[in-house]
């Protein structure tokens, strides 16, 4: 099945776009200025299509609106407010299904399966180590500007945490690593994410990750009904069939999964093999990547660096062990590569972690 790309007009984000624009308008921005560069008008968004198909747009459109919004509206609270309002009312049928999940892990699994309907701009990977689970986020649509990255991360965190608080009654103990520099509007993190302690939220990290105790993920919700969840999912599939929708996950996530498989077995996956696997020519793959401002080697480096950082800061593995896990021939090669990926040596990253 084909993954959605940055310019594919398949995102069902009419409601999200409208909410962004309404929130920004309440804060003094003009709707037309917010939609500048998207070839859309406010009326297009409020209009209901005659053949009952929802207005779809591309990730590019959403990103443009987010960028405009970050520039036009001061205060930086829109991303958080959007997140808090996202679950479950903005998600339609998926919201119903999520409301009837057995536990948090079940909800997260649905979010991963229905990436396009849930968090189309982010890839979510879940790793576990000892008794903790790690939710790792990465852009699903290629390179983002720093405004966009911050907005989307804040939106997603506040939506996730809002859903957790809503379903669990209170917010479980969490820890957040963020891959951008400390922001000016830290008070929003204090209040909306309930992250009062600087030990629980760390900026300037090389990985974007939410840490939660694994047992929290499996605490059962007593008021969930499996039958309602199954019904909602069936209805979703029907709607998808009617609208000819077949883009469950992002193009980048498909690529990453395929390359990951190869890397795990120490099979170097060449660009040609990869293109062949997905049924493209090598040049087409290159073009598709370029439209996301990515390149093939960059993706491989990114997968390996994220793996290395995870092992380093979470598992506290030695350089030898990480180098071994990533199939480096020796440790010094690993150190050099790590420096190239992250700008710091493995040891300096360890020191930085001790400092926190």
């Amino acid at each position, binding site marked *: 099945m084909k993954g959605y790309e940055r310019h594919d007009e398949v995102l069902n984000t009419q409601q999200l776009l409208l909410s962004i624009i309404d929130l920004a308008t309440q804060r003094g921005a003009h709707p037309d200025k917010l939609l500048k560069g998207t070839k859309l008008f406010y009326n297009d968004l409020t209009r209901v299509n005659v053949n009952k198909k929802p207005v779809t747009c591309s990730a590019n459109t959403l990103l443009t609106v987010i960028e405009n919004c970050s520039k036009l509206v001061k205060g930086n609270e829109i991303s958080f407010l959007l997140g808090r309002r996202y679950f479950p009312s903005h998600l339609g049928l998926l919201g119903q299904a999520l409301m009837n999940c057995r536990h948090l892990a079940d909800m997260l699994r649905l979010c991963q399966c229905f990436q396009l309907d849930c968090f189309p701009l982010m890839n979510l990977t879940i790793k576990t180590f000892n008794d903790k689970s790690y939710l790792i986020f990465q852009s699903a649509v290629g390179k983002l500007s720093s405004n966009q990255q911050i907005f989307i991360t804040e939106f997603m965190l506040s939506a996730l945490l809002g859903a957790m608080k809503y379903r669990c009654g209170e917010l479980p103990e969490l820890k957040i690593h963020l891959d951008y520099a400390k922001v000016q509007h830290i008070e929003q993190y204090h209040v909306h994410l309930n992250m009062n*302690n600087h030990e629980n939220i760390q900026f300037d990290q090389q990985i974007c990750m939410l840490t939660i105790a694994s047992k929290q993920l499996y605490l059962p919700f007593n008021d969930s009904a499996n039958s309602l969840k199954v019904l909602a999912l069936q209805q979703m599939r029907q709607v998808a069939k009617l609208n000819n929708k077949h883009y469950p996950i992002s193009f980048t996530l498909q690529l990453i999964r395929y390359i990951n498989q190869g890397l795990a077995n120490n099979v170097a996956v060449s660009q040609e093999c990869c293109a062949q696997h997905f049924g493209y020519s090598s040049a087409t793959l290159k073009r598709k990547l370029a439209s996301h401002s990515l390149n093939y080697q960059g993706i491989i480096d990114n997968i390996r660096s994220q793996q290395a950082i995870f092992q380093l800061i979470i598992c506290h593995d030695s350089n030898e062990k990480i180098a071994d896990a990533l199939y480096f021939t020796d440790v010094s090669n690993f150190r050099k590569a790590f420096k190239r990926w992250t700008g710091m040596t493995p040891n300096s990253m360890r020191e930085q972690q001790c400092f926190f």
Partner: protein
Amino acid sequence: MNRSFIKYHSPLVIILFFVLTAVISCTFALGELKVSNEIDYFDILGEGGMTIITLVWIGFILMSRPAGKVTNWLFSGLLLMNMSMLLDFMDEFIKYPDNNAWLTTLDSLPAPFGMVIMSIALYQWYQEQMTINAQLRRTERVYRDHTLTDFITGLYSAKYMKQQIKHQLLYSKSSNKPFTLMMIDIRQFDQFNRQHGYQQGDNLLREIGQVITMNIRDKDLACRYASDRFIVLLPDTSNETAETFAWHIENSLANLAFKVGSDLKANYQEITLCSKEYNGTESNYQVLELLNLKMEVTKKQNPYPLGNNSLGKQVA
């Protein structure tokens, strides 16, 4: 407002005097006095009048406006125009030798720049005024920057508060007077939003902001922190005084019968309130973190739901 802002403008006044003396001494140094039959008294009257009038304008600007960006723009624009006129005026009694004739061609140069800057300044002034209309007393201290207001409540935003805390820390440290910060959190605001809609939630926030400002002194500052939280800066205040104020605010808010739209039913809000005293030795960031932790502890000690008269409160 019956107070002059001139005392906050010492840097600008110094710049003004420096520029004026520089222009006058420069013209005297480079040229020589004309003989009396060369002087055109009619021109002197006209150009001298204009110079003095622009100087008066600068004076008015400095007296009527607090320190800030727009004031700086207005001041620079007027100063440039004043420079041009002064140079023109000096022309009337000073003759430049041929090798220094560039000064006469230069004299008209600052004026157009000054006018452009003035136009920008006036446009910003207009925008600032629009923001100020929505503002209340007790929501601003010394410095004005309309870009830092919070659109929903009309109070200043957390960014402004952070700047003020920075100043207050320096002041407290040097004067050895403690100050207190108070944080006010509305309980179950999410639920209110879900029940009545976000527009009503915003209205509620605005009214609560107003009630808080009604309960504090003129030298205090109330700002919106984020979402449903407010923060109040009480300079030169110990915890005991803050405790009294906290009691006042709690009482007022407990009696705020908010009506949703044209609905007759009154909605009473419960709040969590905590305050903390600082002596100026803390860092800017530490201050807020300590206050937030305090809020967290207070919330845990007073779990929801509460009775109507047992508002969450803790002062230490």
